[in-house]
């Protein structure tokens, strides 16, 4: 990486583990592992990545598009980059060299500047090997707790991405036998909406994590014939309920959910 990232990099991750340690102690140590997904792994998923990481959730993020596409000088001339091979920083520097005024004005440089301190570069969902240990990502924000590389909840930012993710999981054939909740939140692809939705994602993560914690705090024998009372219900069962309640709080962000498998 380069100087810009190098200088900003250590700051944020250094902050996160300290907080994480504190929060972990308060909350009994369990944090849901999350994953945010949008089309280009730039705006919406990265806003979510940042906000969830700041809230001390282990988090990774991906894009489902075939290429990273950023607006260019005209609608027909977008800036196109490859996933997994281009760093946020190199994109930043390229656009800055091209037309600093334009890309400052449309917020791209601002966004890329934020992204390059979160992680190295945009990653593509379809190329991601689920369960590959992510031990080389210590510098990424939200990397703590994500070492095993398997999230509990995937949050997509657009119906199209949700479809792509669920469909991709079907193609993979669920070799890991591990359930995953895939939740879509429809977010319009602009900075303002992404910002609002970032808060909504944290709210959702907190609600879900609370349910998961309650499940974990129930110590003792399983009564097989129980299952009735909501307080006894497991995390998995409570996800749709929690999402429904969340939806009431965030009516402008229509949500979809399914339980799939890695």
């Amino acid at each position, binding site marked *: 990486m380069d100087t810009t990232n190098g200088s900003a990099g250590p700051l944020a991750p250094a902050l996160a583990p300290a907080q994480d340690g504190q929060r972990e102690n308060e909350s009994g140590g369990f944090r849901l592992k999350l994953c945010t997904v949008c089309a280009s792994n730039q705006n919406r998923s990265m806003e979510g990545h940042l906000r969830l990481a700041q809230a001390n959730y282990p988090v990774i993020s991906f894009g489902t598009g075939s290429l990273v596409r950023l607006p260019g000088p005209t609608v027909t001339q977008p800036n196109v980059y490859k996933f997994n091979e281009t760093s946020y920083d190199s994109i930043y520097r390229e656009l800055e060299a*091209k037309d600093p005024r334009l890309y400052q004005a449309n917020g791209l440089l601002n966004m890329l500047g934020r992204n390059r301190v979160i992680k190295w570069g945009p990653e593509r969902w379809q190329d991601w090997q689920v369960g590959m240990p992510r*031990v080389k990502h210590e510098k990424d924000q939200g990397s703590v707790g994500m070492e095993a590389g398997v999230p509990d909840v995937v949050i997509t930012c657009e119906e199209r991405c949700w*479809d792509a993710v669920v469909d*991709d999981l079907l193609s993979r054939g669920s070799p890991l036998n*591990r359930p995953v909740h895939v939740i879509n939140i429809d977010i319009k692809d602009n900075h303002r909406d992404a910002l609002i939705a970032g808060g909504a994602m944290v709210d959702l993560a907190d609600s879900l994590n609370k349910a998961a914690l309650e499940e974990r705090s129930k110590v003792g*024998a*399983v009564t097989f014939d129980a299952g009735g009372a909501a307080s006894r219900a497991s995390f998995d069962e409570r996800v749709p309920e929690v999402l429904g309640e969340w939806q009431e709080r965030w009516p402008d962000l229509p949500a979809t959910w399914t339980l799939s498998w890695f």
Partner: protein
Amino acid sequence: MAADTTATSASASNISVAEQLEQLSAARKLVLENSTYYDRIVKGVLPIIGPTAPLELRRWGAEFLAESLATPVLAMRDKENITVAVLDTLRALLDGAGEDAIVLKASVAAAASAYPVALRWIIHNSYHTESWEQMTAIKARILRIWDGAPAPVMLSCIKFAQRVVLAQTASNGMEQKYHGLDISLNLIPANHPLLDPRQLEAEATGLLDRMLGVLQDNSSDALLVDATLNCLSILSRTRPNTTYRILNAVLNFNPLKLANSPMTPKTRVFVKSLEKTTRVFLTHFLRRDPNNALSRRIQQYLEKLMRSRAEIFDDAGRKRALADQAAAGHGDAKRQKVEAAGVAHISIPPLGQGPHTLAGVFTLTNSLGLQAFDATQLPANLAAKISVRTLAGLDQQVLDFAIAGIRDRLTSLHAARAAAAAAAQPMVYNAATAPLGVEEEDDDYEPDLTPAEDTEQILNKLDNAPPEEPMEPTADSGVAMALGPFKLPPPPTLDPDAAAKLSQAAASRVFGPLSVLKEGSALRKPKAGINRLAASSYDRDSWLTLITRLATRSTASLDLDNSSSNGSIKPEDADTALDRSRGMSLGDTIREMLYTYILEDWRRRIEIAVAWLCEEWYNDQLTKRSGSGGQLHYEKWALRLVDGCLSYITAQDKVLTRFLAEIPELSRALLGKLKALCADPTTVQLALTSLLYLVMMRPPVREIALDTVAEIWTEYEDARPLAAKYLVKWRPGFIESQTRPPGDEAMSANNMAVTT
């Protein structure tokens, strides 16, 4: 080293659980970093996480086992080693009475990963019966706790069952060759000492049915249904024996059943989830195997699902659609922000020195970005849409101002005479994308190319394509662009000959349909008498009626004698001076053709001739009544028709009799034509019988007919006997009067003839 620490810590019971967990986490971090430690660490932790360990350790242990057995970093051989080693602990964890749900969930998940690996191990190491016994016991235990287990455990049980079915059904080899997904019934030899393929397959069939039960019961528990649907896909795709049963169960499943119940936030999430998960499952299948026998059913099901969903989520959809519409109308919100302001107040700077492109002259914006925009890149229809929308919403004052500004520019340019074509630099170099060379990217970049990606791929390719031909800037503005008034070339002058030819051609076309039209059914139908409509159906009869009327009543000569026309029916006087100068009138042309048409097969078309002559007669009467002195046609064409027929007539053609009986008017001249028949002995009888018929049945023409008979008697010796017979009856005394005056000689001759 960490492994050693773990091992020692396990044995030391005086360490607290929290400390132990910390050590275990460190060990886990170690294996994640270096997979070669897996074998040692997994085996090392087994004693610590057993069924007698504290709950936290059991939870951690079960989850660690599940994670380790599923990890993609280990090769199959390493995995086999670990799997065989953990079966004992796994079984113990599962067997623990009243075990914690999280421990059970993770243990069953671990067992799901272990199952295919253990099966493969046994296939190749049949001596190792102990492992298989362990695995079988685990399977039995899991299948027993499946029903009635808490939801998370049940989820894992579903997945376990799915792995058993996957491993114990014949594969079509379409699955990915990793993570044991490719372990199937195909691998088991028929003579394996431990494994009986048929028995295993039967078990798989039973388990699949049990899995599908949740669909067959039309369960509304989205959690279980989603979990089932999302793991059935690989079965339906790669295990042909399961495909039909799975799809059948899915197609009989109604994901929208819950929609009828009151919509709480949770049920809303449920309904949407069930619907979408079912849809993704089916579209996924359809895309992978579009030629499946069930494809049509799937498509119908999906269409129905879409419709029902539209009804249920109508309100939500509408809200979203409006937002989308707005976005479509005003472009992408994300990209619109640049230079959005500054349109309201336009300032039109005068052009500086130097050559300008035509585009430059018309460019009003100050934004460099917009100036560089090459409008020719837009597709024409999009450009048209934008233009129309802009013009519709444009303030008149702004437009006037802009036009005035451009005009000023042009006049100033004109004055300066800074002519010479300016070669504008076409924007070919797309700086944004060129350096990356993304064009070289090809399909193999996509490990899994799905149609959903295709549109995007195409878009990307389009993005990278060089812009289409830049507009060639024209130096002299305006002049070349203006459109002069366009006039059609005048038609060639029409001389009478050409006009006649053309009208003949037109007339001949009128006869075109006759060859293809069917014989009218009028003969079979009862006649409607006087009430019949002349041409109410499109058959040959109707068409002929049309032609005859066209011939007899055509309005070709109207302009000549407009005042004399009476009512809707125009008198026929086509043969005017004007028409004569051009040869034949349209009416006569048609008559001529009609005549030819009848004579082509006159025996069968005699009816048409009668109908035609009736029309002619009718028109003649009208012409006479109007007193316009128009041409009369009936006589002329009746004579021609008779002439035409007589040249071909034979003794058997009784049709002549009928013709003469039916045409509206008979004249002496017409009947005189019959005399010619008497020159031929064979047709004498026909001629005379026809005349006799007229005498008997048409009293008005009786005298003319008898006169004709008398003339025949006088002129044709051969016809005399028959003629005499009729004359004796109908004109008594005629023969006597004829024979007497010429004298005895003639009379005696006559008598001789009679006597002989």
